[in-house]
Every structure is written in structure tokens, then in C-alpha cells.
């Protein structure tokens, strides 16, 4: 395993830099990644002149997987492979680094949430079975078009993040019109599931299908050697609980008898726990 107990603040600042990179790569007016794909595949939807986070939608292609009539859209659109192939494969190799280091939509409520004292926050861990609920939401997301109506576009935090970025860079048109579902989604994303959720990532925990797909990919392959993951070393762990306290995804359980356990279905490889561990017992690296 690689080692390193970096100060927590330094790690969070580095992550902030990663999220800034994510903004530049995926969000208009920059959207450099999307523009690059457009250059490489001019006949695909990414080859249109519109380049924002919707062009590389991380939600619709996942829904299309269970909608056979949309499979031709997947075939003709290499950029739609991002959430169904590229990001999950990356998560298999190195954990869901996209969530922990590149996704501004996940980071915004987490970082804003640090402005609110913990005593005002709700900690889902121990009160709710987070993992089953997360996968339940995911199944609901996939099959809602068959049961009721899809929430793919109407209940999307990426849209709101794009609207915020656009507004900051001079285009406020995205903020001019509301829908009930849009207001509901934005409010839930930032307020109850962000500011007032321990860790600030309630939306990521339950409502992000892209994150769930990456977590599932990482979790199912974590036992294989050669893959990078956050791992706890039981022999040196002092069971202080520092890692569990700083984990934004509430993914760590510390038990003096059973040891420290990192829930692979939740971990986003943000490495805050690695930085916070005083004994260097949590490390990010290959299985030894």
C-alpha cells in the first residue's frame, strides 16, 4: 500500500482544485472535455455547437440502459458512454475518484455544509440503511419511466449546478424559470441534503445515479488485486473515530472489536479519512 497522512485541510484544498478542474472540463462556458469529444467525434451529439454539462449527461444514458428504444442513441453517441462505461471503469481501477475529486455538483453542498455547525445536522448513518436506500433510489430512477414518470431531467442537480456556473459567468437565463420539481430538487440538493446533512453529501448518498453506478462498480471489484482503493489497516488502527467523523459519505464504521470498516458501496475515494488518520492506518493504494 502507498502511505501518507496528509493534513485534512490540505487534502480538502486539493480536492477543491479538482472540482475547479471539473467545472472547466464539464460545465459551460468552458466545457473543455465536451469540446474535445466534439472535435474527436464530430458526427456525435457532442459534435453539436452546444457544449455544457447536458451534452455529456451523466443520468440519461444510465436510464437508457433499460429502455431498448434508446439503445440506438447510445450507439451513435460516444459521449454517452461516459457514465455507463468510462466512469465505472475508472471506479473499478481506482475507486470513484470522479465523485471525490472532479464533481462540483457533489462538492458544492459538501463545502457549503461546512459553514453549518454539526449540531444542526442530521446524520443518516445509524438511522437509515444508507446502502439499500441508495440502490433502491437507483432502481427507482431506472424504472420510473415505466411505473410513473422519469425524474431524469426534472430532478437533476447537474442542471442546477450548470445554471449556477452560467449565472456566475454572466448568463442568468437558467435561473429565470422555475418548475416545481426543479425548485424541489435544488432545495433538497442544497438545504436538507446538503447544509443540514452530516458530511453534506445527502444527494450523493441517495439521489445520484452516476455516483451509485461508480460505487457499485468499485464495490463489486474491490477484492481483486492491483486495484486502488481506500483501505483500513487493522493492526495499527487506534479506533479514534477521526476518519468516520470527517467522511463526507458516512462510509466508515469504527468498532474496537470488529475493526474499522470502509463501506465500499459508499466510499468516493476523497481521501479525507487518509488525511485525518493520526496513525496512518487508512491508506489509499493497492491491496497488499
Amino acid at each position, binding site marked *: 500500500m502507498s502511505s501518507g497522512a496528509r493534513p485534512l485541510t490540505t487534502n480538502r484544498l486539493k480536492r477543491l482544485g479538482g472540482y475547479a478542474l471539473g467545472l472547466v472540463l464539464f460545465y*459551460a462556458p468552458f466545457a473543455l472535455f465536451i469540446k474535445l469529444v466534439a472535435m474527436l467525434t464530430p*458526427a456525435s*451529439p457532442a*459534435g*453539436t*455547437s*452546444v457544449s*455544457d454539462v*447536458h451534452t455529456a449527461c451523466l443520468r*440519461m444514458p444510465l*436510464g437508457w440502459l433499460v*429502455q431498448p*428504444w*434508446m439503445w440506438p442513441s447510445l450507439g451513435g453517441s460516444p459521449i454517452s458512454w461516459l457514465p455507463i462505461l468510462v466512469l465505472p471503469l475508472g471506479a473499478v481501477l481506482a475507486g470513484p475518484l470522479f465523485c471525490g475529486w472532479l464533481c462540483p455538483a457533489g462538492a458544492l453542498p459538501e463545502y457549503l455544509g461546512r459553514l453549518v455547525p454539526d449540531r444542526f445536522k442530521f446524520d443518516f448513518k445509524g438511522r*437509515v*440503511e444508507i*446502502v*439499500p*436506500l*441508495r*440502490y*433502491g*433510489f*437507483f*432502481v*427507482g*430512477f431506472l*424504472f*420510473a*419511466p415505466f*411505473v*410513473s*414518470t*422519469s*425524474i*431524469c*431531467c*426534472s*430532478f437533476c442537480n447537474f442542471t442546477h449546478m450548470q445554471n449556477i456556473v452560467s449565472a456566475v459567468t454572466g448568463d442568468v*437565463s437558467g435561473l*429565470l*424559470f*422555475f*418548475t*416545481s*420539481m426543479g*425548485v*424541489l430538487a435544488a432545495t433538497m440538493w442544497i438545504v436538507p441534503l446538503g447544509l443540514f446533512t452530516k458530511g453534506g453529501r445527502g444527494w450523493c448518498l*441517495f439521489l445520484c445515479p452516476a455516483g451509485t453506478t461508480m460505487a457499485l462498480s468499485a464495490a463489486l471489484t474491490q477484492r481483486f488485486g492491483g486495484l486502488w482503493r481506500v483501505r483500513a489497516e487493522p493492526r495499527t488502527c487506534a479506533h479514534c473515530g477521526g476518519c468516520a467523523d470527517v467522511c463526507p459519505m458516512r462510509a466508515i464504521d469504527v468498532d474496537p472489536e470488529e475493526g474499522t470498516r470502509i463501506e465500499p458501496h459508499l466510499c468516493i475515494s476523497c481521501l479525507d479519512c487518509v488525511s485525518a488518520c493520526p496513525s496512518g492506518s487508512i491508506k489509499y493504494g493497492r491491496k497488499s
Partner: protein
Amino acid sequence: MVSRTQKVLWGVVGAFLVFGLGAYGGKVGGSERGSFTMNYPAQGKECGGPSPRELTGLVSIGVDGAGVIKRTLQPSELEITSHVVTNVGTTARSISFETSGFPDNTQYHSRDTSWNPATRTIERLIPPGDSVDFGMNLSFPKPLPDEPVLVDGSVVIRDARTNERLSELPIKVVRSGVAGVKGECCE
């Protein structure tokens, strides 16, 4: 220790919460924001409709079905957009949008970089199979006029170079009746 049954139950709860959200979104969404698909060159029903799979040749939005949040915050504003205005022909074309029947203060927009708002034209040549977006922001008087039909308009697509009429989609905004546009634009 949580049993497998309890975990399944939590999962079922999660799925049904999403189904509930979807049901609410489906109920109010079509009244709060209009979405449509439009093809060119095309005639009749092939011109467009509420979604790529629902080419009815007409879009009808019933604003009275809006949810309580929309009715409270923004009862008189309506956005009608499409990001699938598609060239289904075999020739690359520059297109212009001609509208009629919408309120005078309606604002028209596209995110396409070659959009000319003064002429409502996508000035680049759009290749066959390629799509652009087009939308309009409507503002009605407050409170909404007590009329059964607020808008009886249409969007006509013309070839910007030859002025050839390529497609026409009627759009109605009504105060009562069933919304003809569902909440989703993409599926």
C-alpha cells in the same frame, strides 16, 4: 444487524419514493414547462410533437395543472423549449424560426453559438441528422387571463438562405383541459 429482508424493504422504500416523485413530476411538469420535438423538412405529424416518440403534429400545454410551488413562485411565466430540432433531411441547412400567435414580449433563445437573436436564425449549416435547441420564454399578465386559450401560435422553420418553408408546429397554451406535453423532454 440488519436482516436481508430489512435491507430489501429499505430498497423498496427508496424505489417508491422515486416513483412518487415521478408521479408528481408527471402530474405537474407538463403544465409548468413545455417541451417539444421538431423535425425539418417535414409535414403534418412528422413535424414534431411532445417528444421524439410522440409526433402528434401539435403541442398543447395546460397551465392550470401547475404544481403549488410553480403557482406560488412564478404563476405567469412559461418556458417552452426543444433541444431536438432536428434536420431529418439530406441537405445541410441554415434555418430561421418564424413564430406567430405568441405574446409580443416573448423572448426567443437558442444556445447554439451561431444563433442570431435579431433574425432568429441558426446561421451555420446544420448537417443532416444534427439537432439544435430552440425555445421561448412567455410572460402572461398576472393573474392569468381568464380565457380558455392563452396562446394559439405556431413555429415555422424556414431555410434561411432560400426562405423555403420546411416545417410548422402549432403550439397552444390553454387554461383548462388536459396537458398535451409531458414533463420530460428527453425520453
